[in-house]
């Protein structure tokens, strides 16, 4: 922790505190991320999104994950990491296509070097290692940020990904957002290790634990991890300890498995409040700037709202177009059945 919950420097390692400029960028990101989470939740209530797994409370992790990357780097996010993807530069309207239900993924992964959001847990970590290895194979200077949750660390693919990365020395930063829950299952059911960062030991990967609600600490730890990976020191593991303030998704009922008091205790650790207090105390942030950031976030929310309120007419041809590079004869036949069906309907 570099900043305490009230935004006061802990004094632990003053030199480690990122520059105000960096933190200001981060602050803008937090404001955007928070607003986006709220907007998406509202869109679910309005029936414009099928479901939304919010990162409310985890925004510092989301922003830091993107902020520490260079252009040539890759981000591998999960379903919960909408805010990180947006922080990387992807249009939220495109990101939310998945949850709106128009298509499985809405952005071009190559444009901002962001993989499609992964739902099958921990599977994407292996993809991240492959992307990193291919880059190194060609002598490119690419680092891959591979994200997952605390629950996902229990999957076999987590193990295989860390081990492949270690054995091949791949430049991957495994970034675990430990938000204490996997849907309803608390961390104690996932692991009885001293920490999730300890999971690096068995692969020969350095592991570090960081306060996931302290953007300053996150930036410091992740910048260093990315730098080590880039310098050829192999994969890095970072566990950010944070908390999922809302239910798993809007479809979940968190009161079934946790006390309100537990949630309340984390309100006091809010990443946004903490950073704002610090920046204001430093004189790096004033009311006018706060208003400007809020305004920018509001405009993005509006853009998101507008985009998601636009209805896309579903085209069944899309279903057959991308299964293979060229449709098989079977798919061509099946598409004809759909067309036939539609024309029979019209004829009625």
């Amino acid at each position, binding site marked *: 922790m570099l900043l305490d919950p009230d935004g006061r420097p802990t004094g632990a390692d003053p030199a480690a505190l990122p520059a105000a400029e960096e933190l200001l960028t981060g602050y803008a990101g937090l404001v955007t991320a928070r607003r986006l989470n709220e907007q998406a939740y509202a869109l679910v209530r309005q029936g414009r999104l099928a479901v939304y797994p919010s990162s409310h409370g985890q925004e510092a992790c989301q922003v830091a994950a993107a902020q520490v990357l260079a252009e040539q780097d890759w981000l591998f996010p999960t379903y919960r990491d909408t805010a990180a993807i947006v922080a990387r530069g992807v249009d939220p309207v495109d990101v939310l296509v998945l949850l*709106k239900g128009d*298509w499985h993924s809405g952005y071009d992964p190559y444009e901002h070097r962001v993989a499609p959001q992964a739902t099958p847990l921990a599977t994407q970590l292996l993809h991240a290692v492959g992307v990193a290895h291919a880059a190194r194979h060609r002598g490119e200077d690419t680092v891959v940020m591979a994200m997952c949750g605390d629950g996902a660390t229990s*999957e076999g*693919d987590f193990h295989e990904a860390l081990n492949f990365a270690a054995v091949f020395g791949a430049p991957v930063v495994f970034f675990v957002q430990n938000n204490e829950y996997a849907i*309803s*299952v608390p961390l104690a059911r996932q692991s009885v290790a001293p920490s999730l960062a300890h999971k690096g030991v068995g692969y020969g990967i350095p592991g570090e634990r960081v306060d996931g609600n302290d953007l300053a600490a996150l930036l410091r730890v992740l910048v260093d991890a990315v730098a080590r990976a880039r310098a050829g020191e192999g994969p890095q593991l970072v566990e950010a300890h944070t908390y999922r303030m809302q239910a798993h998704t809007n479809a979940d009922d968190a009161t079934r498995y946790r006390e309100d008091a537990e949630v309340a205790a984390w309100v006091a650790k809010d990443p946004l409040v903490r950073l704002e207090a610090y920046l204001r105390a430093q004189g790096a942030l004033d009311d006018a700037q706060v208003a400007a950031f809020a305004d920018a976030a509001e405009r993005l929310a509006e853009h998101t709202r507008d985009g998601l309120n636009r209805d*896309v007419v*579903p085209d069944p041809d899309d*279903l*057959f177009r991308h299964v293979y590079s060229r449709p098989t004869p079977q798919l061509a036949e099946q598409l004809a059945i759909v067309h036939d069906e539609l024309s029979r309907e019209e004829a009625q």
Partner: protein
Amino acid sequence: MTASAVEHEKLSVAQAINCALRDAMSEDASVLVLGEDVGPLGGVFRVTDGLTAEFGEDRCFDTPLAESGIAGFAVGLAMNGMRPVIEMQFDAFAYPAFEQVVSHIAKMRNRTRGRVQLPIVIRIPYAGGIGGVEHHCDSSESYYAHTPGLHVLAPSTPSDAYSLLRDAIASPDPVVFLEPKKLYWAKDEVALGRGQEPGIGTAVVRRQGTDATLIAYGPSVPVALEAAEAAARDGRSLQVVDLRSIVPFDDATVCAAVESTGRAVVVAEATGFASVAAEIAARVGERCFHSLHAPVRRVTGFDIPFPPPKLEHFQLPSVDRILDAVDDLQWEDA
């Protein structure tokens, strides 16, 4: 339990499954329920609601998040006297357990010449129709049905959900129990207690009919019944067979039905290629060849990944697609 003592209750499929678990756990202390979020939360579909409270953390509990782990752990539990009922949270999230299911659960009895039996039930909420995003709507029955050593069941009514699950838990053999997600909330009368419905391996004729036979299972049964209803309005009499049990397969009931009408349409949500629907079409073609007035038609999911929510209606067998297939059964020859 004698027939006179049978309780009838109006339950949803989800509630019926919950009841079956509760009743099995009450009757047999070796029945354990485990999986992801099946404990205090009661499962993402609330199917295991209240079981931890009633039977304790030892009998219904959450595991670490690892499906191969859950399946492999269940193998050990079953080897050592337990009857684990495991939940795979959604169809596509059972794939990490595939090796454990195919190479161990399905084969253990055979490799040990019956010395080790594995009374494991693998519950899988499956198939589409609920507007789920990718990986939440797969119809994965063909993978399991193709794997010898597994029983594969797919109920379509609350009563079958209850009864077949009781049979599955009581079976000494592993059972893949496919729960059609879109029917979880469908309510109907359920006769509680064992043996109130036909057992594993038995298909039933859900609707009598004389012109053609619709063969379906799980989520497709209500659609087939709806199609039969619509056809009746047009003066065509369609019979509907509900398989209930994919493995073992009830050839007798299916063949008798098809032979009685001379025409058949297989309805299933899964992609068609090398599927259970293919098997049914092939079997009926082999066994009822001389009774058939027209080729057996299949109305299935297309050979594409399950579509996103806004497009899933194109993929799901619809009443219209079924009726069009029926129309194509060469009636001019009749």
